[in-house]
Structures are given as structure tokens and as C-alpha cells.
């Protein structure tokens, strides 16, 4: 049904993986579709497209969210980090390295979302125990069932970070 007042082509600015981009998007385009279909950043996955699986998790202004449930226009001015932006050149992000070390995936489809979610979890700093890691990673489903190794990988990075903090003190 056409709507006489229908809006199209809203100008917005997003900083995506450190690069500032001036974009024009229709208001019904989700951040996920903008990333995948318009900017060809296909590392972020579309699983359920309903906020139930977490495969689309990205960091917006440092906080993990489901990119499938946010309209891109509503985040005008935000800084977005996707899986493509986590590594520092050839150096993997510690969470990426830990996922490889711990074999924390099988098919890999949920992995970008799992890794972005884990980076968000570590930044929040509310998880201290394995039970808390499991609870705070509950927004990311893995149909292969790699949960045990995912929790191992995150525990490893938490341990590395606490060792590094103690060394710095």
C-alpha cells in the first residue's frame, strides 16, 4: 500500500570500522541490511532477522546490539564496529585468536556474532564466573552446539586481561 507521505533517502553519517561514511538510506532499512546489502560487509550474518539468534550482533558506540532490529536512520552519527573491523591489520583481536585456539565453532555462521558479543561482554565487565559468561552470552545461539568451547575462549581472554591488569599495577 503506498503512503502519500512516504519518506525515502534520508542522509546519515556513520563511522564504520573507523571509516566515516556519508550515506543516504531509506528509513525502513535495518542496520544489518545496510551493512550487508549496501556496504557489502557480509561478515555480519543474518540468521533469524528477528532478534532471537544474535548472528547479527555488532558494536554500536561500543555496545553490542542486534543489528537486525535497528533502523539505520535511528543511529545517525554512531560508530559501528563489525567483525571486519576487530583485527588490527594482520593481528587478530584477542577474542578472534582465542576462538581459533579453542576451536570455538563448527560451521562458523554464528561466529562473527559470537565474537562481537564476546567483545561487548568483556567491555561491559559484568561477567566474572563461567556461569555469568554463559548467561551473558545467552543472546547468541549456536546450532552446532559449540557453547563449551565458546565459553572456554572467553574465559581465556578474561584471564589474559586480568593477568595484564595485574602486571600493569
Amino acid at each position, binding site marked *: 500500500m503506498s503512503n502519500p*507521505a512516504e519518506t525515502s533517502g534520508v542522509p546519515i553519517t556513520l563511522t564504520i570500522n573507523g571509516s566515516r561514511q556519508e550515506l543516504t538510506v531509506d528509513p525502513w532499512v*535495518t542496520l544489518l541490511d545496510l551493512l550487508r546489502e549496501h556496504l557489502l560487509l557480509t561478515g555480519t550474518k543474518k540468521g533469524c532477522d528477528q*532478534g532471537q539468534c*544474535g548472528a547479527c550482533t555488532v558494536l554500536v558506540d561500543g555496545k*553490542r546490539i*542486534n543489528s537486525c*532490529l535497528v533502523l539505520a536512520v535511528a543511529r545517525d552519527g554512531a560508530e559501528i564496529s563489525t567483525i571486519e573491523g576487530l583485527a588490527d591489520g594482520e593481528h587478530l583481536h584477542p577474542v578472534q585468536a582465542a576462538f581459533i585456539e579453542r576451536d570455538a565453532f563448527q560451521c562458523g555462521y554464528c561466529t562473527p556474532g559470537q565474537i562481537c558479543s564476546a567483545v561487548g561482554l568483556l567491555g561491559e565487565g559484568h561477567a566474572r564466573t563461567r*556461569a555469568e559468561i554463559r548467561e551473558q552470552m545467552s543472546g547468541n545461539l549456536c546450532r552446532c552446539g559449540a557453547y563449551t568451547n565458546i565459553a572456554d575462549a572467553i574465559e581465556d581472554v578474561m584471564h589474559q586481561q586480568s593477568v595484564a591488569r595485574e602486571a600493569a599495577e
Partner: protein
Amino acid sequence: MNRFEYVRAGSVGEAIEALAGAPDARALAGGTNLVDLMKYDVAKPSRVVDINRLPLKDFAETSSGGLRIGALVTNSEVAWDPRVVKRYPLLSSAILAGASPQLRNAATTGGNLLQRTRCYYFYDPSTSCNKRSPGSGCAAIGGINRIHAILGMSDDCIAVHPSDMCVALAALDATVHVEGPNGPRVIPFAEFHRLPAHEPQRDNTMQPGELIIAVELPPSDFGSNHTYLKVRDRLSYAFALVSVAAALRMESGVIAEARLALGGVAHRPWRDRTAEEMLRNQKPDESQFSRCADEVLRDAKGQGGNDFKIELARRTIVRALRQAAAGTPQVQSDKTIS
């Protein structure tokens, strides 16, 4: 998703004007429920009013010793706020029992109050639903209804309100500050959500064009005598089959005041002041808790698929009161129930 007019409101006045100007306009905050409903064609607003730039992120002490939470403060910000953790741990716990960290990072205080039922028929436009299409009937009555209401339902709707946060807000006697074309007003939490009766399309008592500005918490002194106990189909990240927010003010080993609110059982967070009153001046023991649970559930009625919820609710109330009396609130990352 339908096409719509996008309005980015620069002030509360602009937002109210834009909302009042189109009967089916919707306010967009975190988007976690509205965008989902739009993808299913359950919500098809002709106008979406983006309120994310409004100055509704205040989160401050009130002169009466409570807290005022702006409508755009996210669920995560509320749950982890040190003042909330210390003075309103029941609210923090209820929020952390709901959704996932990603959703809580985007979802807002106002949006949580306005989220809609997860009744599968409401979500499926190919079925009849009086909430989605008034007058079309209710496919849940006589259909698959294991998640549906056991209290306060009508012949037109047996949907339940899905929020965890709102169950705690009901127990804590919060108030909702709204503003609309006729100015601001304050709605007690118990009067904010409504029972379905013959208008299940109306989830709450807000008027057209009104916008939630803030939620206010009065001072609270339940100490550690509280709990939010949520029972669901899996250990995390699922809506409640039954949840119970309990808070007791204990004086010399006696219950001086009891608050009890249930989620997952009715069209709104369910509070029963008669049952609460039964606990006043009583010693906290199992027989009192059982009597209280029986009182809450005196009019409970199953629909076939959800008959089990009546006994589940009874047991959850008793367990929650036991936890609250002992001062051992449920920890949401602990998947065992004491």
C-alpha cells in the same frame, strides 16, 4: 516491512504533535519490539516518529528519595546502575532475567512498558486475533495456548504481557510520567497496563498522542528481602511461563509489608493486594505462603494447554516468598532454584 513517513523529532512537543497527527503513528526508540512487529506486518504504522534525540535520558534522584528514569534510558543502564543495584535490586534482577544483553543494550525504559504480547496468534497475521484485528476473534481460545493467561482474561483475549521489568515496577509501586496534547500527567503503575475486556487492542491506558517521559520509583526499603523468580521453557533468553516479584519488609521477624507481582499470567503485571494483606503481621512460614498463593490464584482458570500454569504459579509464589523471607534473592546467572 511497510513503507512509512519518517519523522525525526527534535523536541518532546514535536514528537507529540507528530504522534497525535496520525492515528497509527508509532514512536521509535530502541526498536527491539516495533521493528520486529513491522517485519511481521503486525505493526504497519503510516508514520514512525524517531524519538532517540529527545532529552529523555535523565536518570536522577527525586526530592522524595526515589529515582526518576528517563524514557530513553536503556534496560542495561537501569539494570547495572549502582543506585538501582543498591536500592532497587528487585528491578535490576527482573531486567537481567529478561531478553539478552544485546536487546537490553538497545531496549529502553519507555519501550519496555509498551512492548506487546508474544502470543503466537497475535504475531501471525494469517490467524484471527482481536488484539491485532479487533473483531476478528481469538484463535488462542481453543487453540495452542500453553503460554497464555490464567488470570484476568476475557472472552476476547487471553494474551499475557511479556515484560519482566514491568513486574518489578508493579511490585515497587512505580509511576509513569506521560505527556500528550493535553499536557503532562502521572499514571500509577497499577493503572498503566489494563486487562483485555472487550478492547484487547488497548494494552494500556495511554491516550492518542501521549508519550512516556519517565518512570519514577518511590523510596524503597526491602533490604535483601526480595526476589525475582522466573520460570521458563529454557534456562535463559525466553519469556516467562510464570514469574514472581516478591518483596517483604521484615520487622523483628514479622512481615510488616508484602509486595507480590506476577508475570506471564495475565494481560498486565498481576498484583493482588488482598493476598499481600494476608501476609501482614504474619511470621514468614510455608503455610502462610501457601495460603497467600491460593488467594492469588482463587479465580485462576486454565485454557487447556496452560492448565499447568496454575500449579506452577502456586509453587513459584511459595518459592519466591521463601527466598524473599530468607533474604536470598534468586541470582539470574544461577540456574538452580533454592
